[in-house]
């Protein structure tokens, strides 16, 4: 249905904020490591990734079509302790179950209408 999702920055081993110069350097380094004669498929992927990033306008479009990272916290929030004591609300909930507060069927209170 649609093209597979590929992050060109990942392919070239770059961060999204990489400069144009860094992109170019990474590309040539990758091509050197994976020349087309030896690994044509890998080269094709590298080339495609580079093509998506080399032109600033194309790069902007590519960036907008990439999954945006969720800013993961450097330090997670402290979780609350598991409360294992009986809360007064628990006691009241038990007592409440013994009253008519949440009763729904009140037919016994219906009165006959005579006109």
């Amino acid at each position, binding site marked *: 249905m649609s093209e597979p999702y590929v992050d060109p920055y990942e392919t070239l081993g770059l961060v999204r904020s990489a400069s144009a110069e860094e992109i170019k350097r990474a590309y040539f380094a990758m091509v050197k490591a994976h020349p087309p004669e030896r690994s044509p498929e890998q080269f094709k992927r590298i080339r495609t990734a580079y093509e998506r990033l080399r032109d600033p306008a194309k790069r902007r479009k590519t960036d907008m079509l990439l999954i*945006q990272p969720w800013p993961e916290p450097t330090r997670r929030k402290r*979780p609350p302790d*598991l409360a294992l004591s*009986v809360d007064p609300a628990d006691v009241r909930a038990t007592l409440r179950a013994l*009253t008519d507060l949440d009763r729904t069927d009140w037919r016994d209170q219906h009165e006959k209408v005579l006109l």
Partner: protein
Amino acid sequence: MGVCLAGKCGRIRANIVNPGCSTSSCLRGTRLGSLITLYVGGGLRAAFTPDAMPQPKRSGRKCPPVGSDPRELGLRAFQSSRFEAAIVAWQPLAADPAVARALAEAYFRRALGILAIDPISDLRRAAELAPTDMRFPFHLGRLQHRAGDLAAAADHYLTVLSREPGNVAATKLLALLTLERHGDVDLSNLPGMSPALKAWAAPALAVLRGQPVPADESALGTLWRGIGHLTARSPAARATLSDERTLPAPALEPLRRYFRAIAAAQSGDTDAAFKLWQRLYDAGNRPPGLEERLAALLLERLAALVDAGDVVAAGNLAQHSSTISGSAAFDELRLLALNRAASAAAADGSWPQAATFWDTARQILSRAQGLGSPRPLFHNLALAYERQERWEEAADAWRALLRTRTRKRTDAAAEVEEEQRWAWVRTRIISCYRNAGRPDEAVTVFRQAIKLDPNDLDLRMQLADALLANEQERASQNEIMRILEIDPYYPDALLRRIAQLSALWQYAEAEQLAHALAKRNPDRADVRRRVADVFMQHGRQHSQYRHFDTAYQAFVEGEQYHDDPHFPINQARMLRVLRQPVDTGALIERALTVGGERTETWVLAIETWMMADKFDDARALIARFEQERTPRADDYVQLGLHLMTAILPPPTPAFFLSSPPPKPVDTPWSQLALDMLDKAVMLRPDDLHIHQIIVNFLTLPRPDLARRFAERAVQSAPDNVDALISLGVVLGMNGDDAEAKATLQRAAKLAQRAGQLDLYGLAQELRRGVGTPMLRMIYSRAMQGANAFDDPDTFFG
């Protein structure tokens, strides 16, 4: 007493059946007579006696149709539980005490119905109508109690108990409410607090006070004892709460399971606690502390999965627990797990799954605070919907993203960058709504945005685009004019205006605006390039209509804004057509200086020499081209076919269809073009594709030249059906009918063997056309026209 229930059989409402009334309700009135209050004209009520009854003015008056008496209408509605209709029917008669009581009952029943809209108002009205009926203040208190209005509820319970001191239900609720309002208090002084009710409340009070629960071996007593053990953190709690006897109220059963889970957790068995709480939550039984406790255990499990890198399991757990409200830490971890799982699903191409995860994350984030902006989630969600072609949802997600836009940036460069991103999002909204068949929605989006910021010209530009997409051309033009009213030199709008003027052939005005725009934006290369494009387009238009002098001017003016090699090339061609002195070499040199890195520029330059009939210059330029550019086979094909196009006779429909081609005349130029094609073939002798391009191009205009390329194609691929068909046609066009038929027959056989039925049919049809004018027609049709011959622009650079 009896009465006509229809009520219109005369002015009399009698206590007997009206003898003149023949309706069935009138007859039924005799049965109900003793229970019905009489009613005259909606105002007079009396217990009529026969003496007091006025006599009918006209005897024998017919009774009107049944069902028009509001009482009867109301009664029927009431009896069929249509309390709304009963209230409407009885309301005008509320002054009648019996009707008032009936009306109060209708309000009461409607208030206690499942679909009650405003039960408290209904009960208040019922209490007004029947102030002595204590059911109404009781339920008013109960509903206000449930709604959290404890003070008002207490007042109502006290009202009930002041009239009915022995009302157990009200006393229990008042006791509960008192504990809710004031915590651990003495309940013995509450009205109606009998010894039995004190005993009823004693276990709860004991637990709240941390005292021993009164001895009671019943199922309920054991439950209270278990809760008491839990409060004391006694190890006996688990055993005590494992009692399975039936409790007096069904609502106590889930509570007992809930307490069992606390007991399990207290004894360190959090797995058992987790299972019990999870089951209770899934079943919809949610005691006050359940979500918080379940969330705490879920957080532990989720953290373990996240830390272990089990992205899928963590995502699924976060998804399953998405509706549970928990701590900020739980929300933070769920968002992290869901986003990771969504990203992994997207990377695998599972976009529906990714969309589900991101949407859940978005929902959690919308309930949480301080966990970051929803922007990445909206963005990713929109991408996921787009991948699934769920265009409307994608547009909505982009739209939601657009709403998160802030305008606080101060850095100018960052502002431009950010603005370009938002512009992209807006374009995306338009295209998604367009794909969803809803361009109107895009218009709405931009109109709303413009209302908030009327001077955002970029937004107005997007609106103009959306209007255009919605086929509202005039409205789009109006929007452009509005932009120009705000900023007469806003580049995008002015360029659009220039395009409009050009479309109306108002070239002078358009060019004047274009000059002004370029003058105002000397540093904006993009604007200058677009202005140059305007002049290029005008020049081409002029040249098509043989206004070569104005075309030349346009090409000269355009060149000052952008270094496009087409400008000097076209200037050279225009001057030659105008028979004016021209330094073609200098102009070509200028073109090569700015566009020499492109093969197209060389091809146009060589073609220009050919148009000037400067054969030696063309050859010299080709030699330079070969030296400087090291042409590939494709470049030679491009050059050869371009030259060939320029020397072949101009296209006419008849040329393709019926008339025979003009007699070919070989010139040094055609030989040169052929040399280029030969060089291409020499460089890639086995490339069937290149052979086919050349053969397809030459077959109709120069079958004699096409022959050798067609033969070479078949030599390199003897069993290729396409190549054989081409050769067959070329042979047929050259008059070698027998050989053509044999070749096409062979092509048909191979196509049939390979299951290529379309090619088989074509080869057979062509074979039958060999030796007749039909061969050209069939081939022309099969080629669907040779577009290269039809494009007048190929004659101009």
